[in-house]
């Protein structure tokens, strides 16, 4: 799972308290760096689609990078490289994603999150 994907994920347990199902907290993470081709124009177009606060806090908690407090309005080449590295090249290989609202744990194994719930949680 790349961090851009984590940016979209939320807990979907039915009883999860509203407003607390996102973002999922990543615990016990083993990270790897992917070899993804850098495309400045692509990254520039991607930025407005990201939840910057969540990307920033996740990158910080995982020790990947310290992104600026606010999303750069006119990103420099360096900004774009940094966002590329954080969102597209950083892959969570093994981890647990924990919901702050209901405590549900979603495992990530071999880079693949398993988001299935038991029948009683749906």
């Amino acid at each position, binding site marked *: *799972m790349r961090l*851009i994907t984590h940016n*979209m994920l939320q*807990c979907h347990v039915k009883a999860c308290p509203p407003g607390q199902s996102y973002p999922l907290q990543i615990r016990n993470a083993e990270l790897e760096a992917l070899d993804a081709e850098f495309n400045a124009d692509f990254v520039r177009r991607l930025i407005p689609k990201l939840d910057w606060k969540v990307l920033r806090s996740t990158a910080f908690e995982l020790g990947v990078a310290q992104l600026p407090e606010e999303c750069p309005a006119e990103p420099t080449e360096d900004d774009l490289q940094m966002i590329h590295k954080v969102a597209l090249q950083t892959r969570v290989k093994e981890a647990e994603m924990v919901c702050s609202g209901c405590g549900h744990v979603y495992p990530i194994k071999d880079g*693949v999150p398993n988001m299935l719930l038991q029948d009683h949680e*749906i």
Partner: protein
Amino acid sequence: MDSLPKEKLEHVHVHNVYNIIAPHFSATRYKPWPIVDNFLSGLDKGSIGADVGCGNGKYLGVNPDVFTVGSDRSDKLIDIVRERGFEAMVCDNLRLPYRDSCFDFITSIAVIHHMSSPERRLMAINELIRVLKPGGHLLIFVWAFEQESRSKRRFSEQDVFVPWKMPKAIYGPASSQPNTAVAEDGGDVVYQRYYHLFREGELEEMVRQSPDAMVEACGYDRDNWYVIASKK
């Protein structure tokens, strides 16, 4: 078929079957589908989307200028997607693990026809619309009850089992996994997949039930019905 509860029917005749047939299924999924390819090729650069029920990830690499998260209910199919280097996760279309309005596009190719009641099909479609951004686009393909004249298949009812035959010589003997319905036919192991075959207008009508969706195009292509919709 009616004797099984809906969840169990899908478990035995969809989820488990795809997990067992995954390598053979994947080896047969390579033909392009022009309407899907055109939809993906027409997306704006830098778009973020989800392919819900992505199978072996056949469409995940079509347009390199967009970012697509693939997902499937079958973890064995997702193993194949991961090995191909695509972004993927295991999840259920009936309850997607994505936040509201976060994707520019969604594709649902040959998925909704595996849901075994009108309520479940509608629930799956509504989930696709929920995670789509206003202005974003959705493409849904489902198998048609009305098969083309050159098709070898003829159906007399809409809810059917369609056999998947795996050659024993290549893929080994029948799976003994629990909750699996299996038979043998000569050199093949036969698994029955559940399908709901859509009649003309049925898919479109379901999409139109959502107050958030606007149907932009619909049609028939190679034994399938499709709808392209946008979110208001």
